[in-house]
């Protein structure tokens, strides 16, 4: 199939018609496992919300302060998504076009902010950008005023810090899915950078960006501690804070459920808008050759790429360096409970990753086979669901039948899986679509279906994406405080919970060391699983 002549842009209607499966067309793998997975996730998210709503007694609705929280939430989440994705495009393009020593390590490390516990990331960011941070210190040396980080711009900077790496990885993957042959052909046709952009890169971005934006918008919708702290005060009240207030300050479960419904509604709207953008037809097939970019050899293109990679590296690495510097002194003298918590966290992460693969693989396959709406929306729900609502809902549901402490770890793993699912789908689905388009007809002609198709066609071609998704889930699960605080007893503390406990007991140095351990474990798990997917990020 790869040898078949295709238009350079891969946008021909013929290709589209050939790829889009008819509803009654035979399929190499069944759709129902994916449908079940989607329904299961939707049931968990909506069921917990319903459980909270049912426990409500009267309660107040949506007032002016909720309206202003909604307004602020929308503004900060939109700005955060636009800036994260906007900045990620040149960074990903530069990373896609350049090969240099340490590139793999850099790409892995760039993902780190995403998996840091919130409180640690805030302290790292402020060590660089804060009033007495490194930059303000340098400015002070020249007699200049310190940076003013607190405000809406601070919220956006923090959210870009968290999400730029994710956006970069998603977009970089898009670039890597353009086969080398396309670039070769375009170069033979004398396409300069501009033409290359119009023919190959812009269509790819049109396919990737809406989904990436929707995911980041949804993550930022449920921001709370970051938005409040960097926002500088109650002006930066988000919906999630209003939900927290409804639970903690007023014990108004009705209002918590209403607010959570609004949050879910916004996310579904974002997801639907992203899905309305025509996906195009993928980029067609190639022979997985190394990409050579004849268009990017000029001096100005090189300089531009160096500047962008340098910007991303400094912006993302300096706060991490601060985390490292703060944590290193205490790392060797960590108290024993931290190590046992680390072991608990590793188990939760392993369980979470296993669950994720069970759900995400069939789900992404059925999305690739045309069940796009259901799968994507079920997938993104996990992002918009307030952890507090999921946790409380599960608590209400589990409490009558079992002691919450006994199921603390499986429940935490389950919730972590649901939170990681949207990311996993963004990673898996584009590749899965490609694999289906290129191989489904041949496989059916050979009567290869079900397990054999999974083993011989999907697995070898999606290994890189599966490894990336599994690594991301393991790392996220390790770093997430999640719902464990609602369920845990003293013996089942996870590492992030232990970091908070150390801080709550004034032990800042030990807390920062434990955070560094968490960071090392997360990166280790990510590296291990991501690398398991071989040639990936090399293409």
């Amino acid at each position, binding site marked *: 199939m790869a040898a078949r002549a295709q238009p350079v842009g891969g946008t021909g209607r013929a290709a589209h018609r050939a790829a889009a499966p008819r509803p009654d067309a035979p399929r190499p793998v069944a759709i129902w496992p994916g449908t079940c997975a989607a329904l299961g996730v939707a049931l968990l998210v909506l069921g917990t919300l319903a459980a909270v709503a049912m426990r409500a007694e009267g309660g107040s609705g949506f007032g002016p302060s909720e309206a202003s929280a909604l307004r602020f939430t929308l503004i900060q989440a939109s700005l955060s998504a636009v800036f994260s994705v906007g900045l990620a495009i040149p960074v990903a393009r530069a990373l896609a076009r350049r090969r240099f020593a340490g590139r793999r390590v850099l790409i892995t490390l760039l993902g780190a902010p995403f998996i840091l516990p919130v409180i640690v990331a805030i*302290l790292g960011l402020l060590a660089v950008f804060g009033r007495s941070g490194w930059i303000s210190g340098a400015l002070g040396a020249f007699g200049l005023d310190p940076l003013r980080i607190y405000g809406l711009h601070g919220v956006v900077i923090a959210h870009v810090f968290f999400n730029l790496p994710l956006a970069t990885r998603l977009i970089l993957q898009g670039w890597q899915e353009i086969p080398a042959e396309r670039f070769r052909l375009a170069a033979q046709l004398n396409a300069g950078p501009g033409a290359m952009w119009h023919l190959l890169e812009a269509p790819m971005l049109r396919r990737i960006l809406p989904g990436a934006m929707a995911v980041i918008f949804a993550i930022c919708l449920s921001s709370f501690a970051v938005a409040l702290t960097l926002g500088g005060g109650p002006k930066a009240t988000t919906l999630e804070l209003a939900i927290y207030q409804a639970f903690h300050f007023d014990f108004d479960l009705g209002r918590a459920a209403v607010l959570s419904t609004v949050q879910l509604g916004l996310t579904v709207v974002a997801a639907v808008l992203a899905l309305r953008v025509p996906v195009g037809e993928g980029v067609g097939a190639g022979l997985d050759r190394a990409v050579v970019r004849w268009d990017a050899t000029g001096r100005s293109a090189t300089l531009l790429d160096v500047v962008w990679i340098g910007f991303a590296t400094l912006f993302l690495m300096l706060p991490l360096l601060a985390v490292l510097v703060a944590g290193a002194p205490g790392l060797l003298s960590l108290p024993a409970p931290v190590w046992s918590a680390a072991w608990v966290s590793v188990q939760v992460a392993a369980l979470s990753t296993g669950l994720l693969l069970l759900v995400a693989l069939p789900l992404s396959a059925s999305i690739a086979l045309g069940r796009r709406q259901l799968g994507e929306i079920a997938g993104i729900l996990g992002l918009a669901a307030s952890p507090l609502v999921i946790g409380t809902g599960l608590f209400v549901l589990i409490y009558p039948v079992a002691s919450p402490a006994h199921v603390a770890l499986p429940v935490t793993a389950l919730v972590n899986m649901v939170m990681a699912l949207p990311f996993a789908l963004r990673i898996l689905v584009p590749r899965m679509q490609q694999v289906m388009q290129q191989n489904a007809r041949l496989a059916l002609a050979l009567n290869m279906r079900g397990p054999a198709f999974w083993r011989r066609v999907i697995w070898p071609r999606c290994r890189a994406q599966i490894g990336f998704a599994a690594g991301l889930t393991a790392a996220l699960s390790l770093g997430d405080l999640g719902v464990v605080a609602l369920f845990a007893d003293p013996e089942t503390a996870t590492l992030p919970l232990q970091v908070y406990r150390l801080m709550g007991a004034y032990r800042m140095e030990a807390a920062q060391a434990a955070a560094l351990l968490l960071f090392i474990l997360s990166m280790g798990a990510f590296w291990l699983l991501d690398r398991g997917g071989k040639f990936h990020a090399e293409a």
Partner: protein
Amino acid sequence: MKPLFVAGALLAATVATAETPELVVYTYDSFVSEWGPGPAVKEAFEATCGCELKFVGAGDGAALLARIKLEGARSEADIVLGLDTNLTAAARDTGLFAPVAVEADYALPMAWQDDTFAPYDWGYFAFVHNADADAPANFRALGESDAKIVIQDPRSSTPGLGLLMWVKAAYGDEAPAIWDGLSDNIVTVTKGWSEAYGLFLEGEADMVLSYTTSPAYHLIAEEDDSKAAAVFDEGHYMQVEVAGKLAASDQTELADQFLQFMVSDAFQSIIPTTNWMYPAVMPAGGLPEGFAETLSADKSLLLPEGDAAALRDEALDEWLRALSQ
């Protein structure tokens, strides 16, 4: 696999209760942590009670109350330990608590009379600063100074709510003006105490809302005398932390025994250097070296729980209005 797991866990629990009685105490998370009073308290009580003491941690005081409300009369908790006087009115209204009779000679700045909740420790909210910097003497001076402070959000944090009550108790109807004065001093507002204290230690602010006993931690545990708590002349708002017994408890006698133990020397001597608060009953050895003197009764501010509950929403509105501009 899961039903089996749950069944196994239930079976294990049943076997345990058959052997020794178990007393379940719900408390906030930092109490049960390895660095809090929990482990030492468990050891000391189990040495005398012939029972098993089980702590269950649930976030902070407000989360603790939310959890009790969620569980209702079916709760397996016998004791709830860790509510403060901003929460006791709401806790009392649940009707889930039983009267208790605890005998103690309290070392609180005021007489304590409550037939439902018994105090186990207390402290004063205060702004902590670096000892080498000059501290303002009251809220007005703080508002006029250019000192930068970090505070906690009253909607998500106990100290944050304490600060609201402090300003309200000290200034009453003038509270909005005080908040106006403070608004340009506030660098930021955090979700909880840990974030705020971390920001202060990182140098993001000159002062942080914490307790008068915070410098004692640095002095005793870290031999660091660089932190001090600013003494305000309008007085300091108090946090009194209490415990109560649930009416639905199946271990009523053991629960009473625990509450009496709570005000004994064995429990109270653990509190200062694990919870970093003043003990509710002075232990025989007195306060550890490095603990600040307690204030006189007229400088110890505390709204009665009914007033605190009634003023809460109004005080929050004033705070939001002043800081949202």
